[in-house]
């Protein structure tokens, strides 16, 4: 590629926006993270309802709604599927 100082100057300005790219990336991550969390919350609460045949209690709903870590959702989802009772699940979530 032939190097054009003028274009390099433009690119430098555009690269000043590399921070913009990073900002954009952070925005994208945050947006998608919010969407992921919403999906996991819904799946988790439905799973709890289905597995234990009760509406999830308010404190459990609150703690699920406040969670933003996918790794934690992953663990909770597994627990919701394999816990033998709602109480066991609540203990795992440190609610009891």
């Amino acid at each position, binding site marked *: 590629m032939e190097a*054009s100082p003028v*274009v390099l100057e433009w690119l430098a300005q555009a690269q000043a926006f590399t921070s*913009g*790219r990073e900002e954009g990336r*952070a925005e994208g991550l945050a947006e998608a993270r919010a969407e992921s969390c919403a999906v996991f919350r819904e*799946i988790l609460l439905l799973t709890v309802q289905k597995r234990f045949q009760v509406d999830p209690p308010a404190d459990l709903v609150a703690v699920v709604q406040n969670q933003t870590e996918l790794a934690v959702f992953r663990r909770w*989802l*597994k627990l919701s599927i394999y816990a033998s009772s709602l109480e066991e699940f609540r203990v795992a979530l440190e609610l009891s």
Partner: protein
Amino acid sequence: MNPFDQAARYAVKLLDAEGFCAGCCRKPSPPGVGTAGSIPNRFRIPASRSGAATPWPLSRVWPATRRRLRSCSNFSLDRLAPCWNAWRNTLCVFAVNPPLQREPRVPYTVVAVLLNLTGPAQAEVWTMTPPDFGDLGLQLRVRVRTLREEDALQLLTDIGQGRAARCLLPWLPLMRGGDQSTVIEEWKRLAGAEADVRKRGDYGGLARVLAELSGRDEIWTKGLEGWNVEVSQVVLEWQAQARAEGREEGRAEERAEMLKLLRERLLRLLQKKAQAELPADLVAVVQGQTDPTVLGNWLDCTIDASSVEELRSAFGLA
């Protein structure tokens, strides 16, 4: 992408596509002869009632079709497609237009302009006959514009008198006489008349890039000292593009992580339910699912399912 390619494409498509077509589809004029008379009908600037050329860009009507040409922002790639040849420093611009008359076979007509940015004139007719296709092929007559043979002062006169669009200003450093200080001064006067500050910045930035392609960068850089290129639309677009790309990258990354996690959880649960190796099609359908809501629903179904067959049915495989 080659920076000259990027600058040239930008100058063609995004400054004023219509003005570019009107200016470049015409036959080049001999020195000292006005150019308006040789503009093809499709792109001719209509004459006013008095017979004088209507100053650009007051009228945008195609006389032949009575249709308004789409504005620059509506041009998509298949409307005006520039193809760069780095080896020859040429730019071939295909302009795709509605046909003049009802044409049952094709909905468009295509014309092409070959811009020789630095090199000599080339043949006007291209013949493309691949040897392994028998006697099939295409022949295309293009308008060849060889900028080093075209008079910069003449173009400035045309622009000044409204016979050519201002969007042609960035190409001027490549033209004959484009290294004369008088030309640069007149260029600055005409470009300075552009009310849109971003567009004015683009003219300056693009002219400097193209001046470099012709080895005239020093004189143009000096001539345009103080010219505002900081607000160039090019830069703003690159910046916006960078941000948008970053955003998409972030979204894709996060989404992939979520899907991976959901699929993994679902497959483990399926494995546990099946108590045996899962059928390949079941695994494939889970791995191919990209909608997290569907994966969530399948997870729910799996909790209740009592057999693999039931699951196959729920997953749409039965």
